[in-house]
């Protein structure tokens, strides 16, 4: 990765911040006046009195909550044998609360949470009337795409989810690998024919796909719309990816949205926070957002951005803790969309500043793991991003407080990632690359971080 010059980096940050400050006096609609402060943030009373924003699926008339629950990030605990198991009680409490506040779309997959997500979600939801929620799950036949294995995965989903129909069924992670991969996973093994029949029978109410890939790959899949009729498509969309995808392995969300909108295909949003990156933003970015609205959380900005596009059926958020859920509910109950100017502010001003931070675009999905050589890939990126975002990283030996920052980085690195799993153990075998939905050049980024750490260790920055 090209190293960005520190001075130019600081300059961009400063300039963008100044630019943002100029437009901040603007004309956006304000939801609330709080003393002298105007803010779109709502207080807790909205949780009692507010209404969840609902969107209508043009295809079948489903009334779907704009906030959907992504069931891939529940807390884990250790069982008797030391194995990681999802904390079912915690999941139940979250899902009960979400359902009571109008969240009616639950998205899972047979591979999430080390394979436990469907079961956990099924247990939690089956305690409520089946008609009160929509279930979404996926055919995640990555490792074995044979007819038998795929059929087993399909049937197991019904059992785990304790249901006899699935509302939204997705072909999981299409795009990369193009039509060839699509044929291999879904056509040649007969699954496409089978799933279409299941849709006719009503076992699957809506059939769609989730997409990660570039423009050509997306266009190819859309050409199949006439043949298969995608009832909905799930895409990665957030204010950063709107205009700032790399263009080689990814494509701007704006393009994806417009193409689907043209065809009137309902859109499900994944990664509205880019895996949390837009919830815990860099110091400079946080200041820009807070100057604009001191009471609104960074996450609420990102959710309002995706919610402001009408073709969006629901935006999935993997809420781990009650605070996440409540903050999100406050955004989506009595929902206030963004003005055009505010959309610009996020997708241009803020995203431009973010693009100049050397953070790694990792959202901790863990698809790359386990690294066969033991490297803790997401752990390394998370620690690095955190230090960059908090501004707690040493830049230069001449910098004030350099010694402290150097020690802080090295000690916190050792705490976050045990030394045998640190970046220097990446051997560039490149086996992780194909798994990364964000198309991060993982070894290159690891080497970049390692080079930085090595400079710190040698005290040669």
């Amino acid at each position, binding site marked *: 990765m090209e190293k960005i010059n520190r001075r130019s980096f600081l300059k961009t940050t400063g300039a963008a911040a100044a630019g943002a400050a100029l437009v901040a006096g603007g004309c956006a609609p304000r939801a609330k006046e709080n003393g002298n402060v105007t803010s779109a943030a709502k207080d807790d009373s909205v949780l009692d009195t507010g209404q969840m924003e609902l969107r209508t699926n043009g295809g079948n008339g489903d009334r779907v909550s704009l906030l959907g629950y992504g069931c891939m990030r529940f807390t884990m605990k250790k069982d008797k044998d030391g194995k990681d198991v999802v904390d079912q009680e915690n999941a139940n409490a979250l899902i009960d609360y979400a359902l009571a506040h109008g969240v009616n779309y639950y998205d899972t997959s047979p591979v999430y949470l080390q394979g436990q997500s469907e079961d956990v979600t099924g247990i939690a939801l089956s305690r409520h009337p089946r008609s009160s929620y929509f279930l979404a799950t996926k055919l995640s036949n990555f490792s074995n795409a044979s007819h038998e294995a795929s059929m087993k995965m399909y049937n197991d989903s019904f059992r785990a989810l304790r249901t006899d129909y699935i509302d939204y069924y997705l072909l999981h992670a299409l795009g990369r690998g193009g039509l060839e991969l699509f044929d291999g996973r879904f056509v040649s093994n007969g699954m496409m024919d089978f799933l279409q029949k299941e849709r006719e029978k009503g076992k699957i109410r809506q059939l769609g796909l989730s997409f990660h890939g570039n423009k050509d790959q997306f266009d190819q899949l859309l050409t199949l719309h006439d043949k298969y009729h995608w009832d909905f498509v799930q895409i990665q969309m957030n204010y950063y990816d709107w205009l700032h995808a790399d263009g080689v392995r990814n494509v701007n969300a704006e393009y994806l949205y417009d193409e689907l909108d043209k065809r009137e295909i309902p859109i499900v949003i994944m990664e509205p926070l880019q895996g949390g990156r837009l919830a815990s933003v860099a110091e400079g970015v946080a200041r820009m957002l807070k100057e604009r609205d001191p009471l609104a959380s960074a996450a609420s900005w990102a959710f309002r951005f995706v919610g402001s596009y009408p073709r969006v059926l629901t935006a999935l958020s993997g809420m781990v803790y009650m605070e996440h859920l409540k903050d999100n509910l406050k955004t989506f109950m009595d929902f206030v969309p963004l003005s055009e100017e505010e959309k610009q502010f996020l997708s241009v001003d803020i995203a431009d500043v973010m693009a100049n931070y050397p953070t790694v675009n990792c959202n901790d999905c*863990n698809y790359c*793991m386990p690294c066969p050589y*033991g490297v803790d890939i997401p752990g390394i990126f998370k620690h690095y991003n955190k230090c960059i975002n908090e501004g707690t990283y040493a830049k230069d030996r001449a910098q004030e407080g350099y010694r402290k920052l150097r*020690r802080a980085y090295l*000690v916190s690195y*050792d705490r976050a990632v045990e030394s045998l799993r640190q970046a220097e153990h990446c*051997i560039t*075998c490149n086996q992780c690359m194909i798994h990364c939905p964000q198309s991060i050049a993982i070894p290159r980024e690891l*080497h970049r971080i390692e080079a930085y750490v090595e400079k710190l260790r040698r005290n040669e920055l």
Partner: protein
Amino acid sequence: MLKRIRQILAALSITAVTLLFLDFSGTLHPFLGWLAKIQFLPAVLALNLVVVAVLVVVTLLFGRIYCSVICPLGIFQDGVSALSAMRKGKKARFSYSPEMKWLRYGVLVLFIAALVAGLGAVVALIAPYSAYGRMVQSLLAPVWGWGNNLLARWAEHSGSYAFATREVWLKSLPTLAVAVVTLVILVVLAWRNGRTWCNTVCPVGTVLSFFSRFALLRPFIDTEKCKKCHACEKKCKASCIDIDHMKVDYSRCVDCFDCLENCKFGAMRYGLPARRKAAAETAGKEGDNGRRAFLAGSAVALTSMSLHAQDDKKRDGGFAEILPKRAPEREVPVTPFGSESVRAFYDHCTACQLCVAVCPNNVLRPSKDLSRLMQPEMSFEKGYCRPECVKCSEVCPAGAILKITPEEKTQWKVGTAHVDLDLCVVNRDGVSCGNCARHCPVGAIEMVLSDPDDRQSPHIPSVVEDRCIGCGACENLCPSRPLSAITVNGYEIHHKD
């Protein structure tokens, strides 16, 4: 008064030396490092003639105050003896015993022979400073480390970076065993008979005794005032006051001054004796109740177990298992940068463990090889000899590791790496790698085509021997486990070209 001064100086001295061995951060060495350098044997081995001369002159002037104030092992035994006196409730528990010449000089001859023959293990076994260092490094340092880790955990909770976790691991089982045996023997001897060890086994004590016999200032008995109450004799932990014959054996007196305070009649004085009588040694009565020779160590041939403190932290699933690395067989041991040759290193090293204590990369550890048991060697299972670090060269008091700068360091060649292509993951796992080449600080590893005629063939590492310095980065970071596919062998003689 003199006793009080001695006690205060001794307490300061042993605290400082102990801290020197415990402080893994290296912050104390600039301030306290000299304490290691004024130890007698390291100074002799380092050919530090100034220090040796000063110590000899001091002994000629004042007697063996070295043994009471500078030598940590001596001070340690005084502490044990004092505890024993407290527990037994009788402070006066010693009695005169004649010098055990055969044992004393026998050990010294053996010691010098071992030194000349380069039997470092034997030297390390009885050298007092080494014995003390070994005990602190093997027995106290882990406790210190765990304490640090406890603080680090607390610091982590409170978001502080004041303390960082440091791995505590068993560096050598034989050395630990020897340290335990040393400790037990010393405690038993000191508990029962005070300074037995110093006056029968310790070669430094024996050497200094040649000079202390002629010391200018010394404790002496004022025969006119002496009432022959034996109070001084009973208090003498060196068992060197013979009141029956009105004699003091100055070869064994360590100038603790306990006798002075204990004389009610002012008959024991420290200074220039009025009449200089040659300290005659009499073969007096048998006062020796079962002193045992120090026969430990050589019998200790325990097999080594790799009890690495495996760090198996629990995390949210999804990690591949990492096998611990195993040290390869090295034909020639790798000795630290600055040691110039394997021979010179082991000839000078007193196995005091100071370098082992201070190595931040977990490279140095006491050898398990019998011929250089407890003397350090380098190995790269837990880290490699990082280019910016010259800590061991800064602390070595014995001249085994000469002082070098980081700039000089990468010019020295202490060994060279060689590749085992069968183990290399390029061949074994069929992946691309090159981690060794990427981390070589001197660019001594070239990734070459495994089949020169096939441009598509995978790249395998090859060592450019004349560039390799033997730092072990490649071996440490090689993904092949438990045995690395690229390993370092030492050079008998280190060189710069």
